[in-house]
């Protein structure tokens, strides 16, 4: 068995052909080989879909995720206090309630990057993570099918789907760890048992970074189970592994299970996914990413087209599936259709299968026919274009102001007398980050708000399902921060009890009307 994907049919001959030319030329062949060029193509696609506003399918991803800000704030707090939070300190609605930073390691990374590089740094991290995911999908597919061209095609096909989740959250790091796990298992499947030794460390990092480690455990379990059977039905096959090899995987799985207990919160972090399933029913019913996949979205259309295409190909030119690949594929597809957030998992599982299908029609890479200089030229062009794609600091600031209440934050900083304020979830996250010390009504940490009963009140308020004044009184709210055009904004605009004190194109603030002598707020309008 080989460590590298078996693309080149005659590796010895190429070594002989270049061996006497010198180390530098050999290195040139390696660095600027065609597979590396394909990797660069994958990177440029991933980056395009991550940052470019005019990407064909998905664009302008840097600021679409409100949770980014509270993750940074939590990471900053851990970095500065050298302790892990156990209670809420960001809201006035659930203040002091038990809460754990279940993605603390990812949050530290985010906070460190934000501290070091500000908005450009965060954007660069997102780009790097997106590119890394693209490259790892490419490598995994290459390992599976042994054809770098097919792997690149498959990766580029699934990238529009995967990129739907390329937002700046610790889950990006979780996906990378998922891919690392799959690569280790693929190597193990190909005879490299040593590849498994890294997994306990991966899971140790993973459990402290994102709850998606549970998917990793599922993958390990499926691979282990698949090795217990031996059959072939139609184009589905399972081959029983030797007892020693199977035992090795089982022991590694146990070690991974042990590793996920090593967290600052003990086993609680490892059990968090169970908590999500059992205790966070309301979140999963209201959060967009937990909803049914909306097939009208472009990325979902691509996903559906890939699935129907795979079905068609299976009829026209059947490929043989390993049982673990089919089990994971079916699980991923079903979960993705039911909960859109699993679309990334589907992309990761789908790409190697697609690459196997595509490899039937693409000849393998032959190194002896490679043209490193041409590859090098293209790679340089790609790298330069990547730099061009990277958004400027001014553009980042403009994006931020278009999506978040930057002007309202300035107003609130200069008017600290504005009392407890209602805000939306994503803007709550931004406020936590932008005005440290100011307590919010709600933010993206849905778990604690569901346990405190605030989330359902919030949903009722935002959709005007109950009398807003009743909700305002219940929480003693004195101000409201909303986006113009919001249902609630119209309500407060028409209500004589509330007065508009700030307005710009992104946000509007209302305060509960006070007598002239007791007030301290003044009405301003943002300059046009």
């Amino acid at each position: 068995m080989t460590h590298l994907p078996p693309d080149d049919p005659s590796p010895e001959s190429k070594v002989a052909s270049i061996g006497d030319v010198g180390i530098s030329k050999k290195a040139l062949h390696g660095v600027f080989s065609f597979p590396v060029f394909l990797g660069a193509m994958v990177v440029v696609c991933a980056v395009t879909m991550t940052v470019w506003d005019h990407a064909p399918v998905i664009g302008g991803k840097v600021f679409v995720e409100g949770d980014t800000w509270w993750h940074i704030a939590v990471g900053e707090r851990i970095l500065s206090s050298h302790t892990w939070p156990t209670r809420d300190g960001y809201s006035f609605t659930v203040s002091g309630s038990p809460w754990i930073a279940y993605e603390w390691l990812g949050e530290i990374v985010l906070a460190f990057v934000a501290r070091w590089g500000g908005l450009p740094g965060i954007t660069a991290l997102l780009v790097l993570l997106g590119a890394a995911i693209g490259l790892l999908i490419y490598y995994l597919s290459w390992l599976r099918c042994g054809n770098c061209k097919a792997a690149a095609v498959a990766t580029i096909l699934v990238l529009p789907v995967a990129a739907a989740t390329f937002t700046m959250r610790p889950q990006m790091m979780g996906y990378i760890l998922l891919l690392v796990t799959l690569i280790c298992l693929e190597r193990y499947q190909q005879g490299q048992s040593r590849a498994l030794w890294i997994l306990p460390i991966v899971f140790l990092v993973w459990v402290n970074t994102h709850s998606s480690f549970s998917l990793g455990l599922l993958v390990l379990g499926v691979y282990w189970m698949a090795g217990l059977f031996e059959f072939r039905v139609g184009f589905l096959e399972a081959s029983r592994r030797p007892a020693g090899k199977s035992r090795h995987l089982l022991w590694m799985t146990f070690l991974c299970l042990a590793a996920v207990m090593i967290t600052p919160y003990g086993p609680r972090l490892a059990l968090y996914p169970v908590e999500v399933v059992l205790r966070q029913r309301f979140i999963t019913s209201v959060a967009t990413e937990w909803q049914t996949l909306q097939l009208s979205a472009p990325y979902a259309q691509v996903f559906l087209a890939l699935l129907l295409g795979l079905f068609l190909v299976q009829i026209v030119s059947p490929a043989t599936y390993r049982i673990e690949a089919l089990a994971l594929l079916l699980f991923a597809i079903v979960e993705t259709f039911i909960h859109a957030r699993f679309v990334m998992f589907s992309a990761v599982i789908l790409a190697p299968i697609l690459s196997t299908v595509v490899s039937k029609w693409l000849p393998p890479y032959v190194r002896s026919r490679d043209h490193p200089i041409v590859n090098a030229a293209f790679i340089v062009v790609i790298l330069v274009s990547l730099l061009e794609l990277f958004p400027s600091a001014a553009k980042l600031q403009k994006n931020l102001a278009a999506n978040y209440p930057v002007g309202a934050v300035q107003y609130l900083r200069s008017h600290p007398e504005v009392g407890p304020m209602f805000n939306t979830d994503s803007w709550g996250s931004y406020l936590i980050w932008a005005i440290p010390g100011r307590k919010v009504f709600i933010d993206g940490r849905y778990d604690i708000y569901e346990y405190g009963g605030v989330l359902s009140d919030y949903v009722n308020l935002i959709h005007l399902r109950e009398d807003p004044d009743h909700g305002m009184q219940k929480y003693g709210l004195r101000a409201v921060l909303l986006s113009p055009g919001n249902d609630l904004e119209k309500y407060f605009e028409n209500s004589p009890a509330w007065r508009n004190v700030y307005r710009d194109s992104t946000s509007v603030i209302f305060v509960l009307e006070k007598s002239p002598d007791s007030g301290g707020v003044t009405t301003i309008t943002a300059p046009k």
Partner: protein
Amino acid sequence: MSRAAANHGPQKAPCAETMTSQNISLPRFTLRDVFSFPVMLVAWIVLVVIRLAERNLPDPDIWWHLRNAQYLFENYHLPSFDTYSFTVAGQPWINHEWLAEIPYYLAYRTNGLMGIEILMLVLLEAIFLGVLFLCYQRSRHIKASILACWIAVFFATINFGPRTVLFGYACIVILLAVLERFRTRQQAPLWILPVLFCLWINSHGSWSLGILIFGFFIVSGFVQGEWGRLMSQRWTAPELRKLLVAFAASCAALFINPYGYRLVLYPLIYATRLPLNIASTEEWQTVNLHALRGKVVLVVLAGLFCSALMTNYRWRLSDLGLLLFAFYSGLTYERFLFLAGIIAAPVIAEMLYFVPPYRPEIDKRWLNAAIIVGILAFVSYRFPSPADLDKQVAEQYPSEILPYLESHELAGRVFNFYDWGGYLEWNVPKMKVFVDSRVDIFEYAGVFGDYLKAHTLVDAEGVLDKYQVRYVLFPSQQPLTKALRSNPDWKVLYSGQISTLLERQAVK
């Protein structure tokens, strides 16, 4: 290889009821067969369809369909412009489903809401018995056919209700039955098809799906070959000639309608000029996979994929093409799940060859008879009474306010809830509505967009001012109602459990 045998996979197990020849006529039923196991299973389908559909009477469209048919019967001509609303009054409008409205109107005139309920159930049962026939026609396996028909029933629940589209789906079933008969026997009553399309275009816009199916059926026979497990057999020259003549006649028959080419172009206009309707109407949304129907769809899709992996089922090009189209459409727009069910059911029935066949010799007819009688008794006992139907309507429509509207003249324009437009047109003919669920005419004029702006509070005040609205008749729990209730410019004239009527203090 004959066309009839061509699609049967090599693993296909012989079935007791499988016919050895190409004679595909249905088995003759005797009195003894009335209480057979298959009939008992069919009775279950009938029961389930009734149970699933009986609460779907209050469809928002049925009211304006009744009003249209009433207009036709009173004036002996079809309307060519709008007369129901004040927002698009006098603007050109095509009543593209006029023929399908007549049976509903006659049913209502005969027996009120009960008449509509019975007609709807009869149509649904006819469609699913037709689907069962399609399944049996393909699989020759009654138990597999019934299982596949169950799937079609679950898929179709999205469109259960007194809707004109039911006539469209009945036409699709007839079309598929004729085409399948032609494929297996090389002759079929193709002359029916032009008649069918003539009736279809006057009943519902789904005739375009029929043309698509018919066209793809013909085109798939232009090629011959096997590609993996996909195959196609070329039409012989006489076959192709017959099909092309029938297709051309069907296309020509489309123009036999009161509106000429405009009705033929209607589906195209609907698909391209009504983006707001498609974006905001529930049945045009993606399948909700959290619901049971969505989960059934997923299981079926997973089953089809697994069958592609684990069986040697050989696909016809026409089947595969139509199935991919139907599932793509059905998943993207939930309303097309009905179509997906009809298209998929015969293929699924054929794939279920491994289901043990029906064995008449071990059938327990007395047990079947008892169950069938039990089902009939249950249907009779639980069938909704006229009072139940009135209650269903009262739960969704502002029937409570009708006496108030009868006794009080509203001296001004009324902004009404979208779903209630047709109901008001039917029950309060003197009232001109803001909008109803015909959508097309309102979206062309920009009224539907304005309605959404007001409904979602994006610019309620602006819209109400623009149309000089004096009254708002909306569900009591809607955000707009709550917002206006708290607005001192508006006062509540009537407030009920379902509906609230508000009046503006001074019209701007």
